[in-house]
């Protein structure tokens, strides 16, 4: 059994991937809240975790569940593209990929999660499948469909 590293290490190493996935999955506004929920749930369960080998996959699975909770609480509505773009604009902080992430946020849940996991945190198909709780083939399909739609949308 691999010993569990200090939780701070887990936070340092994976917070970037988790926030990227959550921004893709629920948009910028909901992401911070989902991030806190994700890491609180992880910290609660951490001492009982018996396998420290795939902490990122474990965290992203929790993040995915928190994103679903978030959408449920908001009546399953997808994030309107305009709303997400407006969030970033007033500060004058306009990241070049804001438009892209907004479009990702507007995808159906499975496709959105697959795209966010693949490109937000550079996960291989097998780990995306684990995080989504589906087969690698289904993960590949969701990713493919999501990308096709994004290409159409962003031209």
């Amino acid at each position, binding site marked *: 059994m691999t*010993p*569990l*590293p*200090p*939780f*701070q*290490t887990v*936070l340092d190493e994976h*917070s*970037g991937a*988790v*926030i*990227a996935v959550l*921004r893709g999955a629920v948009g910028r506004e909901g992401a*911070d809240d989902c*991030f*806190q929920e994700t*890491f*609180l749930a992880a*910290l*609660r369960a*951490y*001492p009982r975790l018996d396998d420290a080998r795939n902490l990122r996959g474990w965290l992203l699975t929790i993040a995915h569940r928190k994103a679903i909770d978030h959408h449920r609480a908001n009546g399953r509505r997808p994030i309107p593209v305009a709303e997400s773009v407006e969030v970033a604009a007033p500060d004058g902080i306009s990241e070049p990929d804001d438009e892209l992430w907004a479009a990702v946020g507007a995808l159906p849940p499975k496709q959105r999660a697959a795209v966010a996991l693949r490109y*937000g945190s550079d996960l291989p198909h097998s780990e995306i499948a684990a995080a989504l709780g589906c087969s690698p083939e289904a993960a590949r399909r969701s990713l493919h469909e999501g990308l096709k739609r994004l290409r159409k949308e962003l031209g």
Partner: protein
Amino acid sequence: MKTATDTTINNFKARAAKEGLLDVAYVHADSPFGPLLLAQTKKGLVRVGLPNQDQDELLVDLAARVSPRVLEAPAELDAVRRELDLYFEGKLERFDLPLDWSLSDGFRLRVQRAINRIPYGQTRSYTEVAAKAGNERAVRAAGTACGSNPIPLVVPCHRVLRTGGALGGYGGGLPMKRALLEMEGALESQVGS
């Protein structure tokens, strides 16, 4: 590269503390001798890492021996930092901090508790400390117990010397031990002896 903001991370930690999930809170603190690691549990100060110790290694050890819920949370250790700062300025002679002894047990724990009663500016020999811990012949074991003191500075193992006054050893290095004793005025009485 996308990163979570400091605010988001700090909010998470504040909520973790409120929920009682901060089993081990730590901070990297400055001292006149170099960086210290200060770690505490809900019971009290559990570990002080000295400047020449590997802080990452100490954190891994805390995760294995106390709890893996180890998080950097500077605000939680404000009281510890304040007392240590005063001590280094020569303005504090007695620490008033709750201690968590859970990293020690048996004879080592008894030795370390005996060390904790050596007053500021005084020294004891390893033999005296062994006797206080209940076995005056266990001098070598007393030396080991000093060396494995998890809470140096606050539990003042730097005040334990060889019989005759030689410095012996110190986890933070002998120059630090000498400087601490000089600051406390404990070495002047040794001059010429």
